[in-house]
Structure formats: C-alpha cells, structure tokens
C-alpha cells in the first residue's frame, strides 16, 4: 500500500476511505470530511483558506507511516461493514455517552461558576447525546436491516444524513467552546478527563459517520 496517490481534486470522503489517517490531518485543519465528504479537498481547503498543497503534503507524509495490516472498509461486504459499525462505533457510544454525561455534571457543578462556558458545553453535549441515542436505534432497527434486505429506505436515509450533519455542527460548537479541548489553569483531573473524552468522542463520531456516509451509503 505504499503507492498511495492523493490529489487535491479528490473527494474528501474518498481520500479518507482510501487512507483513514488522513482524517487526523483534516480534523486539524477543521475540514469536515464526513458530511462534506463529497467536496474536493481543494474546495474544502479554499473554504478554510488553507493551502490545499500543504494539506496534501501532510496527508502524503502520514501515508508513508501507514500501518500495513489496516482494514480496508471499502472492500468489506455490507453485512460486515454494518457489523463493524455496530460493534465498534455504536457500542462505543452506548458505553461512553452515559459516562461522559456523568462526568459533565460533576465538572459543571465544580467549575461552572468560574467557567460559564461549561453550561453551554453541558447543553450541547446532552443535545448530541439525545439525538444520537435515537439515531443509533433508527439505524439498527430500520435503516441497516433495510439495506441488508435491499429495501428502499430513502426517507429514513435522508433523516439519518441530516442527523449526521446536526451532530457535526454540535461537535464543531463543542470544539469552539472548549477552545480545542484545552483545560483551564484551575481545571481538575475530572475536567481534563471530560475534555479528553469529548475529543475522543469527536474522533469516533467522525470516523463512524465517515463509514456510513462515504462508504456504506454511497453503495446504495
């Protein structure tokens, strides 16, 4: 897999599908590759006023330290890909959303007075949580069985994609509010843990939505 060619005219979703580590680079430039995955890298870079060549350079450099036994999701059957999404990403959310919720309450209680942005973070996170919880179930009981039985779930699919977009927006907001998940000087270890978990959550959701939008749904 050493011959990875990445061009700035490629669609973001395809770049990440071909080379998952590109996600790291794109995230750092705040380029959305899961919902805006159909756009070309060039377009997206222009929007963020970053030099597309720099982005390509950074991705190429990371591509070279690629681990070889990495799974190629584009080659997985629908069934295996859906299994992977549920076992990895849905299960991650089922465990972590409640845990982050508890953490967020504790931190809000301890630091909300001095750091009022925590109230916003609390609200945003819980909006995200409520939305995702029903979203996961919708995929598991309606959309995914529909895909596996070749039923046309056009309306549900549209809803699902809108919800992905909504989640992306909240995550962007959370990143702004937390100033890139940097912990204030007087923040305690729970504060650190909360921000660490939220950032991890962001990464997991990006990857999750990417697998659905840019790989699974594109086959339909």
């Amino acid at each position, binding site marked *: 897999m050493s011959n990875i060619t990445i061009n700035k005219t490629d669609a973001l979703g395809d770049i990440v599908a071909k080379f998952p580590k590109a996600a790291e680079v794109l995230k*750092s*430039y705040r380029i959305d590759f899961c919902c805006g995955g159909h756009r070309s890298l060039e377009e997206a870079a222009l929007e963020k006023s970053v030099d597309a060549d720099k982005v390509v350079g*950074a991705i190429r450099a990371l591509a*070279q330290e690629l681990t070889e036994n990495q799974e190629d999701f584009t080659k997985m059957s629908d069934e295996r890909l859906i299994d992977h999404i549920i076992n990895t990403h849905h299960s991650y959310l089922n465990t972590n959303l409640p845990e982050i919720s508890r953490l967020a309450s504790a931190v809000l209680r301890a630091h909300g007075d001095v750091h009022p942005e925590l109230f916003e973070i609390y609200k945003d996170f819980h909006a995200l949580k409520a939305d995702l919880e029903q979203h996961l179930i919708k995929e598991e009981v309606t959309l995914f069985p529909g895909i596996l039985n070749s039923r046309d779930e056009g309306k549900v699919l549209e809803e699902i994609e809108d919800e992905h977009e909504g989640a992306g927006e909240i995550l962007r907001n959370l990143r702004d509010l937390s100033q890139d998940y*940097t*912990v204030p*000087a007087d923040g305690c270890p729970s504060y650190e843990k909360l921000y*660490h978990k939220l950032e991890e959550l962001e990464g997991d959701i990006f990857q999750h939505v990417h697998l659905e939008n840019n790989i699974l749904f594109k086959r339909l």
Partner: protein
Amino acid sequence: MSETCINCGHSLCARRVPIFSKLDGKEIESVVTLIRRKHFDKGENLFFEGGELQGLIIINRGRAKAYINTPEGKEQILHIFFPGDFFGEKSLFVDKKTEYNVKAVEPVDICMISKKDFQELIKKYPGITSKILQELVNRIDRLESMIENIGAKSVDSRINAVLLEFAQKSLDENQIDSAAQFELPLNREGIANYIGVTRETVSRKLNLLQEEGVIQMIGNKKIKILDKNRLKSE
C-alpha cells in the same frame, strides 16, 4: 492523562516569554489565569502547516519537532522544541497561519494562551498592552541593528564568499588555482536560503559572474572558478 503544569506553577512558564517580561507580578498573575493546558501522546500532531494558530504555545514537558513536508512527502525537520520553548506569541495580536507542522516526539504537555482570551484580557487591563508594546519596540530596535550589520555585507560579496567557501570544502588550494571543477553542495534555492537572498538573485549573480569570466557553470550543479582573485576582491 497528564499532570500538565503541576511542576511549572504557570507563572514560571509565562515569565519565560519575552513579550511578558516587562509585566509586574499582578499583571503576570492575570496572564497566568488565561493559561490552558493540553496533553499530546507521542506521535500526535499539535498542528499542521498552514492552519490557524490559536495562540501562544509553551512546551511544558516532552519534546516536539517542527517540520515541513517536501512535495514528495518527505519530512524536513526544522527545529526541536524542548520544555520551556514557546512559539506563536505573535498570534496573540494578529491572525497567523502555522508555518510548519509540530509533532510530539514523546508525550508532550503544553500550556496555551489563546488569542481569544488574551484579547479579552488586554481590553480589561490596557496597561499590559503598553508594556508589551515597549518590549516589542525593543525587539524591533535589536532587529534593525542586526539587519544593518547583515546589510553591510553586500549581496555580491556574500555570493562570492559562499562560492569560495564551497570550493575550499571540496578542493585543495592547488586545485582551486588550476580552476578544477567541483560540485555545489546546495541548489540555487539552498544557496539563497544559506546566505539570505532570493533564489532569483543567486541565479542572476551566477550568470553575471559567468559572463564576466569569473566562473564557469557546467550544468546546474558543477562549477569551475576561473578567477579566484576577483571573487576575493569584491
């Protein structure tokens, strides 16, 4: 999870930053309250080249490398940041793009002061701005006198000197005197960076020297010095 800044006590790390050096104890305290911290695992990128720099970053623990990617995707390391090193202080005042990638080569803890917080602070305490201004003016003074010194050595003499230097590294005196051919260790761009002029200037000067019969270029990299003394005299 990190123990960021536990040893630093914050005011220490803020004091290291020259633009804060004129601030008194109270003012430093107010700056210190803005410090935010973050942990990066080994191999994680703090940021990539060309992105938005969010503020002043102080490396508090661990080492990080600054590098750029060549068009072929190779890494070119520019600098290693050690604990206590900082960068991005200009981004506190103006929007700055990152000029290189920074990657943690071991677990790294950073302290950060964001532009956003800092702008809020100086609205509240305008005194801080004027002290930082003093320090910046001092810095401009120092730079100006430095530039004067560099400028004193003309572009011509810098190119002449560097050609002689390269010749002496690859040839002995006799070979130089007999106009032996040698290879330049750097391309035009590299020479330009080395002596602090533009690549165009290097190319122009080399052509001029060739027309004047001082040197002879063979291809792009090889060169003969035909008249050593004229390189020395200018």
